[in-house]
């Protein structure tokens, strides 16, 4: 069994995001980049399944500029066997990503495609679902537990009402929640070994995919600043303020 895992390079989650002055996006110069956190969970789960003997190969794929390769390299350092880097510049929308992944799935014929439930930069939460539609494969989103059974997957999903357990046929798409597992550290010897693992490079146009954005972005701006709170002296004052100022009761 082959598992294809999609990983994305995003601004590190510890970095305070700054909006560009002209409102065209966020500042990425001089900013630390990392793997999208739930993508780390996706890689970890794939590697675990391989270690349990239920999978034979884990392939990490990323789409993005030259430096996005680091994200694949990191996946290789924690146990993926080989990598694919689809070179593409600029904003790549979920639909274009799904179409690229579809082409790669056609070529690699994986049994499972894993990825994070959403990316922390655009928060779209669409790629897995779109890929499922394009491939016409079943999907399990927001996975917090995955059991590989013969030709089937049992997946526990994190949903608003609690936990939902579903069973789907493979091949399938699974999007992973942060609660799925605790990603391992890349050890120093494994980082060295990862430098020797192959990464196949191609471009979106090699795959015949048009990545031009279909959505026009009008403006990016910072959320309004929260006003400082005040201390009230009594319950009566609180009620009065909730009624008359906040108008919530």
């Amino acid at each position: 069994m082959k598992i294809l895992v999609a990983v994305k390079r995003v601004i590190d989650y510890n970095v305070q995001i700054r909006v560009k002055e002209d409102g065209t996006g966020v500042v990425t110069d001089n900013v630390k980049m990392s793997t999208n956190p739930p993508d780390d969970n996706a890689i970890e789960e794939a590697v675990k399944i391989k270690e349990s003997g239920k999978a034979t190969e884990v392939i990490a794929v990323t789409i993005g500029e030259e430096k996005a390769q680091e994200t694949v390299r990191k996946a290789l350092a924690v146990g993926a066997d080989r990598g694919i880097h689809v070179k593409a510049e600029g904003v790549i929308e979920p639909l274009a990503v799904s179409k690229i992944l579809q082409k790669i799935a056609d070529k690699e014929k994986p049994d499972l495609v894993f990825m994070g439930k959403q990316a922390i930069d655009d928060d779209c939460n669409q790629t897995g679902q779109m890929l499922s539609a394009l491939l016409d494969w079943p999907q399990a989103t927001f996975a917090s537990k995955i059991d590989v059974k013969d030709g089937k997957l049992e997946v526990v999903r994190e949903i608003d009402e609690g936990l939902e357990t579903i069973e789907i046929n493979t091949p399938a798409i699974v999007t992973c929640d942060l609660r799925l597992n605790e990603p391992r550290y890349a050890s120093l010897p494994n980082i060295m070994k990862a430098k020797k693992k192959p990464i196949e490079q191609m471009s979106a146009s090699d795959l015949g995919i048009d990545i031009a954005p279909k959505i026009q972005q009008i403006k990016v701006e910072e959320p309004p600043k929260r006003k400082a709170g005040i201390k009230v002296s009594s319950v009566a004052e609180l009620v009065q303020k909730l009624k008359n100022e906040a108008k919530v009761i």
Partner: protein
Amino acid sequence: MGRESMEYDVVIIGGGPSGLSAAIKLKQLDPNLNVCLLEKASEIGAHILSGNVFETRALDELLPNWKELNSPIKTKVSKEKFLFLGKTKSLSWPTWLLPKVQQNHNNYIISLANLCRWLAEQAEALGVEIFPGFPASEILYNEDGSVKGVATQDMGIDKEGNKKDSFEPGIELLGKVTVFAEGCRGHLGKQLIEKFNLSKDRDPQQYGIGFKEIWEIEDKNHEEGMVMHTAGWPLDNSTYGGSFMYHAENKQVFLGYVIGLDYKNPHLSPYDEFQRFKTHPAIKKIIEGGKRISYGARALIEGGLQSLPQMFMPGALLVGCDAGTLNMPKIKGSHTAMKSGMIAAETILENIKENKNLSIYEEKFKKSWVYEELHAARNVKPSFSWGLILGIIFTGIDQILFRGKLPFTLKHKHTDHETLRPANEMPKIEYPKYDNVVTFDKTSSVYLTGTNHADNQPVHLKLKDPNLPISYTLEKFDEPAQRYCPAGVYEVQKENDQNKFVINSQNCIHCKTCDIKEPSQNITWVTPEGSGGPKYGNM
């Protein structure tokens, strides 16, 4: 011990200017050498903080074609100012009357973090193996006592010291020679200086704490290439310090403040002195209307030649500010750090190829321009122990008339942790409230550093005596850690009418000030789990 080990010709600890220059020079001298470099930050540059006005002398020697290699050295200094600040007034000092070492017209305004990222690219292209996210936490010794290498930190240890599921043991990295390039107050360098008694017959080391903020300012206030320094307000005559403001590219200014850690008043808060400094009309008018985008702080070495330890020992070398090569009157340490790393590389090559003793480092260092510079600079910092005014007069005579060639050497008399006076003997300082326009509280500042440490790991700020902060330091010095820490790591909290010393180690920005200034040397900074700490951008 069950740890894996890997052997290299040279193991370098720290990806700053000295370590990276050593790595590059080694590979230039012999491409067949196996060289690896460890860095505790999540990427090269993420723990680098510096002014920085850069003198290219060392880089010109290391990579003479740096201008063709797309280096991030772009903004040439075009204008210089020096101001003496009073509370509201300022007096401009003509630059031609500044000592030559403080004139900058051939230098560049750079981000040292970006320079290091670029140096790392050059090093990797030459085949140096660079491992960010791996702090060296332990020195390994051979049976004969010589340094054998280092071990990296175990990862995946919980607060109580138990192994988590994700536990990943550290690795032993063994080198024919190990180069320690951790920067000011390196935590292994400190151990080596003690073990090999490297500071024997030297003056005690002197430190400062440096703050830096990056502001994006309005076009009308921005003069790319402009370098401004100030002395005076808000510090009193007896406290050593001053500010810098460098107008870099993209409408940014690098604004900072350095205070000598030999200050005496435990009520002094270096952070608040810096914040208050920004309210001076001469400063405020430049940054007002702009936006603060970065903040950080780091201890720096000020002791100079008198305090410079012996830099070689069996199996290892100490380079850059892990030893203390900063040139204080120049307020520059990057070029001297780089050169010290390059000399280390030459030494190592002769050691490995010709079996020469590492002690040749000292001869090479003494023959180099770094030594000449540090020798000429040696009397400036100690003269300021007489106060700002006498310090300036003496420095004028020493640096302008005699060009550092006076036939005597002033001494540093105290270590920085000995200088605090009891709290009840010193005046309390009332700092103004933060206005959230040019001044900000510590919490919002630390937020800008992107600092994070994986939770559920052991506290990396170790107390020798856990009771001392409350039983002694609080009463005698009003626990100055609350004020000297630039990141709000230390707090004294009341709990059921009992005072409690709290260490918020996840806030730590790895500046090392506590390790230096704690009056009883009760706090030891050790390496946290890899990748922890700040994530500085172009600092």
